[in-house]
C-alpha cells in the first residue's frame, strides 16, 4: 500500500530525511517512532504530498505521489500532529468541505460522519464553530474528516495526543477495523506502549535515517519496544 524508496529531504544544508526506504502493506499498522526532530513529520508530509522532496520515490497504492499526486491523494488521508483547521467554519461545514473535495455522495457522507463523529463523541458539537473547539475536539474532527472518504492508507501524526481515554480507546478500535478491512496505517507516535500493543510493524528513525524496520515481534525480539528504542538512541 505504501512504498518509500530512498527518500531524501533537505532543508538547506540540513538533511531531514536521509535515504529512507520502507514498505507498509495492506492490513498492517506500522508505528513510526523517533525522537523529536528525527524526521517523522517530514516523512509523513512528503508521503501526503504536502512537501516536495529532493530524492527518491513514494508510491501510494502503486501510484507515484510526485508524478500523479492527485490520484495518490485520493486514496490516502493525513492527520497532522496539531490540526490547524478553518476556525471560521462549523464542524459540519469542515466535514462537508472535505467530503465535497473527495466527491463523497450524500448518503455515504451522512453515514460515515454519523458513525465516526458519534464514536469519537463529537457529533453533538458539529454545529459549533471550530474556533470554539478544544485541541482534542479539533483532533477528533480531523480524524472524522480523514475517514469520510474511506481511504486505503491512513497517515497519522501523533494521533493520540489530546484525546480523552474513551476516544483513545475508540481510535484504537477504528484503527484495527480499518486494517482488517484492507487498509494500511502508518503513524508516528511517542506512546511506545500503545504502539507495541496495536502495531504489526515498526520503523525507527534516528537523525533522518531508518535504523530499524520490520515486523514488531522480530524487530524488538525479547525486549520491550521502549528498551529497544532507548538502546538504538544511545548507539
Amino acid at each position, binding site marked *: 500500500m505504501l512504498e518509500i524508496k530512498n527518500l531524501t529531504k533537505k532543508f538547506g544544508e540540513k538533511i531531514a530525511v536521509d535515504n529512507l526506504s520502507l514498505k507498509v502493506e495492506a492490513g498492517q499498522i506500522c508505528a513510526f517512532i523517533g525522537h523529536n526532530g528525527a524526521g517523522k513529520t517530514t516523512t509523513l*508530509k512528503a508521503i501526503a504530498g504536502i512537501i516536495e522532496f529532493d530524492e527518491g520515490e513514494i508510491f501510494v497504492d502503486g501510484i507515484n505521489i510526485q508524478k500523479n499526486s492527485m*490520484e495518490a491523494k485520493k486514496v490516502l488521508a493525513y492527520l497532522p500532529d496539531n490540526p490547524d483547521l478553518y476556525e471560521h467554519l462549523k464542524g459540519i461545514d469542515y466535514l462537508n468541505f*472535505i467530503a465535497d473535495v473527495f466527491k463523497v455522495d450524500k448518503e455515504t457522507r451522512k453515514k460515515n460522519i454519523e458513525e465516526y463523529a458519534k464514536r469519537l463523541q463529537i457529533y*453533538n458539537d458539529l*454545529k459549533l464553530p471550530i474556533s470554539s473547539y478544544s485541541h482534542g475536539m479539533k483532533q477528533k474532527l480531523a480524524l472524522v474528516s480523514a475517514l469520510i472518504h474511506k481511504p486505503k492508507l491512513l497517515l497519522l501524526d501523533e494521533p493520540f495526543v489530546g484525546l480523552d481515554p474513551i476516544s483513545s480507546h475508540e481510535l484504537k478500535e477504528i484503527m484495527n477495523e480499518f486494517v482488517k478491512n484492507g487498509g494500511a496505517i502508518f503513524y508516528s507516535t511517542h506512546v511506545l506502549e500503545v504502539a507495541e500493543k496495536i502495531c504489526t510493524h515498526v520503523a525507527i528513525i534516528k537523525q533522518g535515517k531508518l535504523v530499524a524496520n520490520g515486523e514488531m515481534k522480530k524487530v524488538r525480539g525479547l525486549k520491550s519496544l521502549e528498551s529497544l528504542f532507548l538502546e538504538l538512541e544511545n548507539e
Partner: protein
Amino acid sequence: MNNLLTLTKIYIKQIFGRYLYGEKAKKRGLYKTVLLILALTALIEYSIASMIYMFALQLKEIKLQQFVLIYGLIISALFSIFIVSYEIPSHFYKAKDYENLASLPIQNWVVVSAKFLSGFLTALIYSLMFSLPTYVIYFIFNSVTVGGIIYALISLIFVPMFVMFISCIIGFIINYFSSKFKSKSIVNTILMFVFLGAIMAFSFTSSAGVLTNLFSSGECPLTIKIITPYIYFIFNAIYLNSFVYFLFFILINLAYLSLSILIVSLTYKKINSNMLISKSKVSNKPLNYEPKSQLKTLFNKEAKGFFGSSMWTLNGLVGPIMTIVFAIMFGVLLLESVEQLKMASSDDFTISITTSMFKIMYLGFTSVMVGTSVSTCTTISMEGKKFAILKQLPLSFKQIATAKILFSCAITLPFVFIGNIIFACFIPFDALFLLISFILPIISVLTFSVLGLVINLKYPKLNWNNEAEAVKQSLSLFVSMFSDMGIGAIPLVIYFALYETLFATLPLILTSLIFIVWFLIWLIVSLILLKNKGEKLYNKIIV
C-alpha cells in the same frame, strides 16, 4: 524591566524584522536591503515634500506660509490615524499570543507597554512620512531659529502620541462592543467601516474647513485649537520661538500617552478574555449533508474565510466601495462642469468632449481603485498554517486558483457595477458606454486578481501572529498594490499626456478600446505567469 525590553524587542522584530531578516532580505544581503529601503523612503518623502511644497507656494502668495506647518501636521495626523487605528485593534486585542502571555508570570502593564511601544514605533514611522517633510518645507519658507529647530526635532517623537491616543480609543470601542456579540467578526467589520468612513469624511471636511478659515482669517483656526491643541502649541512654539508653548506641547502629549496606556491597560485583559469566549448557540436544524461541487465548496471556504476576518474584509472591500464613491464624485463633478460650460455658452462639441473625458476618467480611476485591494494578493498568506489542508487534498492548483480568483471577482465586481449604474444616472443614456463600463472592469478585476495571486504565491507570509501581518503589512500586498496602481495608472497618464494632441478628438469607443486592449495584454501576461510559475511556486511553499 527585562521582560519589557525582551517583549518590546520581540514585537519590533515581528513588525520590522522581516524586512531586514526575511528570506528575501537574507538573499539580497543586509547592505542592499537597507539601500532599497532608503531609496523607497526617499522616493516617498520626495513625493510628499513636493505636495507640501506646492501648498507652501500658494500660501506664500498670500503671505501665510507659516501655516504650512499646521497643514502638514493635520495631514500627518489624519493619515497616521487612518492607518494606525486600523492596525492597533489586532495588535492589542486579537493577538495570538494573548493566551501564552497570560499564562506567564509577566505583569499586565509590561505586556501592554511592550505592545504600546512597538505600536508607537509604527505610528512614528507613518507620522514621520509627513511631519519630517513638513518641517523641512516650513523652514525653507520661514525664518530659521535654533530654538525652532530644536523644538521641531524633539516634537517629531511626540507628534504620534495623539495618533496613538485616537487609535487606542477606536480600537477599544470596536473591540469592546464586538467582544460582546455572538458574531464578533461581523460587528468588528461593521464598526471598523463606520470609524474609517468617519475618519475619511472628517478628513475631507476638516481639511477643507481649516483651509477656508486659514485663508479668510489668517489665523490658526479654532478647530485646530480645540481638536488638536498639540498642533497649535508646536506651531506657536516654533513660529514664535516660545518655550512656554513647547512646554504645553510636551505636557499635552504626555497626557495623550498616559491616557492611551490607561485605556489599553484597563481593557486589554477583559476584552481579550471575552474574545476567547464563544457565544455560539447550537441551532435546532438537522445537520446538512448536501454535496457541492469542488469549485463551489472551495469558493464557499474562501468566502467564509474572507468574511470571517474583519481585517481581510475591510482591506478587500475598501477599493470596491471607493469605486461607488468615485462614481458619485465624478458624476457630481461632471454635472458641475457641464453646467459651467453651459453658463459660459460653450458649444455642444465642447460639452461632448468634456463628458467623454469624465467618462474615461471614471473608467480609469475605477480600474486603479479596484487594483488596490484585490483579495487574492493576501489569500495564500491568510491560509496560514492551514495551507497544509489544501496541499494534502486531491485538489489541483488550477481548482484552488480558480476558486480564489472567482471569489475576488465576485466581491469586487458588484460594487463596480453599482458604481457604473450610479455614474450612468449622471450622464445622458449611452448604451455603448454602459457596455464598455461593464466589460472593462471585468477584464481589469480579473487581471489584478490573477496578478495578485501570482504575487502572493511569490511572497507568501504564512507564519503570522496576527492577521494584520498577512493582510496589511505583507510584502505581497505592497508589491501587488503598486503593480496594480502602475498598470491602472499608465493608460490614464498617457491619456492626459496626449489629450490635446490625440484623445480630445478620438471617439470614446476608440479610447475605451485602447484601455480594454491594455488590460487584456496584462491579463494574458498574468495568466501566463500563473500558468508557468504559479503551480511551481505553490508546490514550493513549505508549511
